[in-house]
């Protein structure tokens, strides 16, 4: 167990953080809005943590204090929330694919800005971000609670007045409006909640990856997150979580298969490096064969029903 954790520490924490990021895509989707803006807020959160921990609270000897990481997460979340509100109000006038395109553009713009500012370290970025833990696996102390709180939040949200308004918009925006739901208000709310969460994840990631630059939180991340949600499932928050966990582990698993040997060289190479190609194929297949993802509310009901039946 200890050797397993030590070998796969980076992967395990990445899986949990990916699951939280997948939830940032799920929140706007609850209201029927396909936004891939969260990598932008993730990048922003990372820069805020990187700048705060290297410039505002310059590292002393020993480990960086965890409470300061929490403070950075809070600041990153708030800043992302404010930016999310500012971007969301105009962007959410757009519908469907146009919103997706606008959010892709937003991610690109943030990347270019980060690349050209002094405070973000330009192309080199910010490196030597101090470590709050002596080993990577201990980042689980931040990642796991964040994932659990996010899941609990969304599970509760689905059973509240606010959550029902979001889902009503997803099901039929016009009918929801005719029932008194203000579409813009609730879309912006979902978008802002997503931004807040993505900013917090970025703050953890900056410490975890140790360096932060404009290659973090790009369109590639958008595609990955979209895969997590579309393949995992977009109609229950369990889908994105499972999608994030499994699909983050998948490239490592494929690499393991490639290393077993006996495979043709080109196939081994593809298994090692073809992550985005494989994700692309999964998205394409998913939209045809399981448009609501692998994990659906119906599936969960059946599993729950069997669980209850066997318990009785």
């Amino acid at each position, binding site marked *: 167990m200890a050797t397993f954790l030590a070998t796969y520490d980076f992967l395990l924490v990445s899986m949990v953080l990916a699951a939280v990021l997948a939830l940032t895509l799920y929140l706007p989707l609850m209201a029927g809005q396909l936004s891939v803006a969260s990598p932008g807020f993730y990048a922003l959160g990372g820069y805020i943590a990187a700048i705060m921990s290297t410039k505002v609270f310059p590292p002393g000897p020993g480990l960086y204090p965890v409470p300061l990481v929490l403070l950075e997460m809070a600041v990153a979340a708030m800043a992302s929330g404010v930016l999310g509100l500012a971007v969301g109000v105009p962007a959410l006038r757009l519908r469907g694919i146009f919103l997706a395109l606008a959010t892709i553009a937003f991610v690109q713009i943030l990347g270019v800005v980060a690349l050209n500012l002094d405070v973000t370290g330009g192309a080199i970025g910010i490196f030597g971000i101090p470590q709050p833990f002596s080993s990577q696996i201990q980042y689980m102390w931040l990642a796991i609670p964040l994932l659990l709180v996010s899941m609990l939040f969304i599970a509760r949200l689905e059973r509240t007045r*606010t*959550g029902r308004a979001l889902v009503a918009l997803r099901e039929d925006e016009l009918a929801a409006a005719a*029932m008194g739901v203000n579409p813009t208000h609730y879309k912006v709310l979902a978008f802002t909640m997503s931004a807040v969460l993505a900013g917090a994840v970025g703050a953890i990631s900056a410490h975890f990856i140790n360096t932060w630059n404009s290659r973090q939180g790009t369109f590639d991340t958008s595609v990955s997150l979209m895969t997590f949600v579309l393949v995992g499932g977009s109609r229950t928050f369990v889908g994105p979580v499972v999608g994030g966990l499994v699909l983050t582990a998948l490239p490592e698993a494929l690499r393991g298969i490639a290393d077993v040997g006996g495979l043709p060289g080109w196939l081994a190479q593809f298994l090692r490096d073809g992550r985005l190609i494989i994700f692309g194929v999964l998205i394409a297949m998913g939209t045809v064969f399981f448009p609501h993802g692998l994990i659906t509310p119906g599936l969960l009901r059946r599993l729950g029903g069997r669980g209850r039946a066997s318990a009785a």
Partner: protein
Amino acid sequence: MSVARAAARDGAAGSASDLLVVDRVTCRFGGVIAVNAVSFGVARGELFGLIGPNGAGKTTLFNLITGLTSPSGGRLRYRGEDITGLPPYRVAERGIARTFQNVRLFGELGALDNVMIARHVRTHSGLVSGVLGLGPARQEERATREHAGALLALVGLADRPEERARNLSYGDQRRLEIARALALEPELLLLDEPAAGMNSGEKRALSDLIRSVRGRLGLTILLIEHHVPLVMDLCDRIAVLNFGELIALGAPAAVQKNPAVIEAYLGDEA
């Protein structure tokens, strides 16, 4: 009393005491005039029928009243206030609820959830208090569930609260839409062909349902319906639209004998 007075002033274009006043409302889609300078008033407590051949502009008129479409001209007044051009959710907040000709339920959601969503304007829990399950939010949630359950019972769907809306029969979907509209506690209810696709037994039950909710909840109802016996039987007054124009307005018996109405339905040769 007010109903009788309204019925007496056949053809009049609404008075200040009316709950809803449609005042020379016009709606153009490109070169097509879907609704042309239509005026009438609906009195408090009245059951007002809207009939006319296909494409006469009835549903467009509903969309104009509920804010789904903005009029090209004219004014809409509700309780004496101008509601012209308000977004749909604002119209709903003011107490105007509707059903849709081509049923628009939240298909993936259960029957009870469909009705609970429509309690939105009558409930107030915010994001944080809701998620944390604080006392008032928890109480409101319970009350919402009970209210929605009672409405399901009213329309005869009490035994299937978890059934997904898309799996219900057509008639049940139409009844569920009525329950959902009633969840807004509207003062004015707009029913767009509620009997479409129902058999004669279901139609009779629907008539009884409309009559009973009207009496019990003190509703004012605007009803689009093709099934003439149902309209004649239920409505205090009827307005007839043809090619976007109001061609007749009055008590059912009078409208039925109106030559313009006969011509609209049967053509010139009649």
